[in-house]
């Protein structure tokens, strides 16, 4: 993430948690943000630019919807009397097309929070994302779901 951007975000977070969006408080938040960024300068990774705010919003909406759906689905599975038939656990290797750390991470986290899937690991060469599925149908179907859904959106956000 862009350091300057991070500072701004942190200043906003500061103002939000203190509950005062006065200039002075934002300034203080900015100072604290700068401190934090200074601390984390090595870990933040190369600067990256968000292309479109609209894409982020679109991704967020999709994510929130999927999150709710996933919670409901898990609830259904949990409350099913016959667990054996409802479950067909499997781990499959999803071939990644996004390459940067940030993209992979975002994708993995989204996958975890959405219905029926859970990221387990990323392969050493970062070409594969191992995904645990609660009710495994077909490998191809699952891969297509992810690739066409979140992966595409993530690629839109970053690039």
């Amino acid at each position: 993430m862009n350091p300057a951007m991070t500072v701004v975000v942190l200043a906003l977070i500061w103002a939000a948690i203190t509950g005062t969006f006065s200039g002075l408080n934002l300034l203080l938040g900015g100072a604290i943000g700068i401190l934090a960024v200074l601390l984390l300068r090595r870990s933040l990774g190369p600067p990256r630019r968000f292309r479109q705010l609209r894409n982020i919003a679109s991704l967020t909406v999709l994510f929130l919807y999927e999150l709710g759906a996933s919670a409901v689905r898990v609830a259904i599975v949990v409350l099913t009397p016959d667990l054996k038939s409802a479950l067909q656990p499997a781990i499959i290797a999803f071939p990644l097309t996004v390459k940067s750390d940030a993209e992979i991470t975002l994708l993995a986290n989204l996958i975890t929070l959405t219905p029926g899937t859970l990221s387990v690991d990323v392969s050493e060469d970062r070409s594969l994302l191992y995904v645990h599925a609660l009710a495994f149908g077909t490998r191809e179907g699952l891969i297509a779901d992810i690739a066409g859904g979140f992966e595409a959106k993530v690629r839109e956000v970053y690039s």
Partner: protein
Amino acid sequence: MIVDIATYAGCLLLLLGALFSLVAAIGVVRLPDLFTRMHAASKAGAVGGGLVLLAVALLCFDVGVAMRAIIGVVFLLLTTPVSAHLLAKASYRTSGQYRVNMVVDELKSKSSQNHRA
């Protein structure tokens, strides 16, 4: 009026959150293996906790507190998948018994390849 609506909505969110938390807990006990339990804990758990925090945000009538609650939600959504991932990654190697339950395990074949190499 708005206050009342917010109260009703908040109560609803609170109860929903509590219910999802309960579901998560039941799932963690009921589901057969670690990975399936993880699904319950991370999804239902995050949603449950998050809804309670949102309820706080709605019911507090204070911008600062509401903001803090929302940031709390964001934080929860930020951390839950990571901890699930770390736990899964860590447990996978130790808990051989769970691989038995799986229909397909592509991570296993990859690990054993690595092992051979």
